[in-house]
């Protein structure tokens, strides 16, 4: 039986190779699932109303994400831009029914008090009629971003919030996509 053991040993060596080839063929059959793959940038959509005649307010999605809403001001193109203090006041009034229906909410207390906005050397100081230290981060960002967009400075402006209990450190809005905007 000695001569037969040599081919048998060779067979034993070849079997794994065959199994590997078969496995390579079989595991790849059909369409396999995949992980999440990034593919290109976002889609830039047209948002209404257009740029000059709108207020950009930031509310919170049900998951607490900062979500912009656009509100028309006037149809008159020559009307002067709405003052930042007024925009912040509108923000503090909370979402309108349609916005609430879409699941948007606010992290800010509703207050009828006056809002004061002072701008000096690139820093915008907003004095609010309620304490600011206990505000949540996304609530702070609601005001910061709303004010920055109202000023037309977007991410560039450093904004300081002041309330009855003191001031917060300067903050910027963030989250804009300059590359995307310039490419479109």
């Amino acid at each position: 039986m000695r001569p037969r053991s040599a081919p048998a040993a060779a067979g034993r060596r070849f079997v794994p190779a065959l199994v590997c080839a078969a496995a390579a063929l079989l595991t790849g059959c059909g369409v396999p699932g995949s992980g999440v793959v990034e593919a290109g940038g976002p889609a830039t959509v047209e948002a209404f109303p257009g740029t000059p005649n709108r207020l950009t307010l930031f509310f919170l999605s049900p998951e607490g994400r900062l979500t912009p809403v656009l509100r028309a001001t006037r149809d008159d193109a020559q009307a002067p831009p709405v003052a930042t203090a007024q925009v912040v006041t509108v923000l503090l009034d909370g979402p309108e029914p349609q916005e609430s229906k879409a699941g948007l909410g606010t992290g800010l207390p509703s207050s009828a008090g006056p809002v004061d906005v002072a701008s000096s050397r690139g820093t915008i100081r907003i004095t609010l009629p309620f304490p600011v230290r206990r505000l949540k981060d996304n609530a702070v960002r609601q005001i910061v971003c709303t004010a920055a967009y109202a000023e037309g400075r977007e991410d560039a402006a450093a904004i300081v919030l002041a309330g009855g209990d003191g001031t917060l450190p300067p903050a910027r809005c963030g989250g804009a996509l300059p590359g995307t905007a310039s490419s479109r």
Partner: protein
Amino acid sequence: MIRWRARIGLRSRLVLAFLLVAAVSAGTTAALTYREARNAILEQVQNTAVSSFREQAATVGTTLPMDGAALQEVLRDIARKGKPRTWVVFAEYGSMRVSSGTSPVSTVITPELRRAALASPRGVFQRVDKDGTPWLTMAVPTVFKTGLSARPTGLVLYAVMPLATEEDDIRAMLTAARDGALPALLVALVPALLAARSVLRPVRDLRTAAQRIGRGELDTRIPVKGSDELADLAYTFNDTALQLERSVTELRRAEVRARRFASDVSHELRTPLAGMLAVTDVLDEDAERLAPDTAAAVRLISAETGKLAVLVEDLIEISRFDAKAAELNADEVDVAETIRRTLATRRWTDPAQVACELPPGIRARLDPRRFDVVVANLVGNALRHGGAPVRIRLRDEPPDGGRARFAVEVADSGPGIAPDVLPHIFDRFYKADAARTRSAGSGLGLAIVRENVRLHGGTVRAANGPHGGAVLTVRMPLATPRPDGEAAP
């Protein structure tokens, strides 16, 4: 049987090795090609779908927050324009869930995809296997232009597309790969068999040549073709055969020289012996008149000279056989008559000494002189070493190889032959009784019997009879072979 199995073994091993190599290479090629082609198909579909989806999504104009009904219209529009196939499009904004289909929420879109789409404003896709059906799910977050930059709207569009067609294509590719590999294996069988043949044919030639060498055809050579290992082997074989042929030729020459020497010596002794015999005859006659001592010496010389003459005659006879110079002068004779004449010539006529059983009517073609020598030597040997009475039986023998035969059986009444001696009693100068180095015979009698019987195409066998005593049986064909025919027993 073993040789046959080994040859099949080598062939099938070669073929198997070829097929294995073909299978592995075909399989590997097919697997790699298949994988690359599949990836290419999927990549193409994905890229088309994702970029088309992004383009479609970019045509959307919406208020923020959007109106559910209007959004649904937009989604249906996108779904219709889906490439390469219609999609089901879903939109998520805040708590709004709108789709182009019946269900506002997809069951295929995974939480990972949703999380990735919300985390960074980039298009993402994922292939999902849902209940055996592959789906391509895509997510494109939307951004809108602000004064200086762009900002995510919070609206994420999802599209879901079945990949069943692609899966069918890929499976078809797999089938094609399999259908291509099997004929490739069959095609590989052809070179495998050719290669096996090219290896096995020299091996077969070698085997045939070795067999011919074994049969004694020492001039057998193998044609050496090419310069591979098999050619080396053939070359070595030829070299070995040449050396063997040289050695055998040398041995044969030496043997011929030795035989010729023996023959020459015998012939040279013959003439002086003839003279000596004449002289001893005269001396024998005159011995009675000599002194007793001298007479005894003269008789001893006379007897020994006679023995020497017999020995020389036997030597000459056997050297003729060795030189293949022995001729068969065949004649048709009555065997019983020939035997009777032999006995009469030797004066073995006393029935108490030699008992005959010679049925008439057996006629054979044989050389009467040689047959006479055979019978005389057998009977003389039996009388000398066995003992009277010697029984001679002639009988018909069943034919062997289609030739009718007869047998002559010579049985003595002696003690028989020892079993260890039996195979040797036809050898030259073989003494059955080691103690008796001198005997009346030359020591060549039975050897000459064997050569003569062989010359007739017959056989001679020695055995012991059932009641003791040696039995030597000569079997010969009724018709002798052709003069130069086979002499082998």
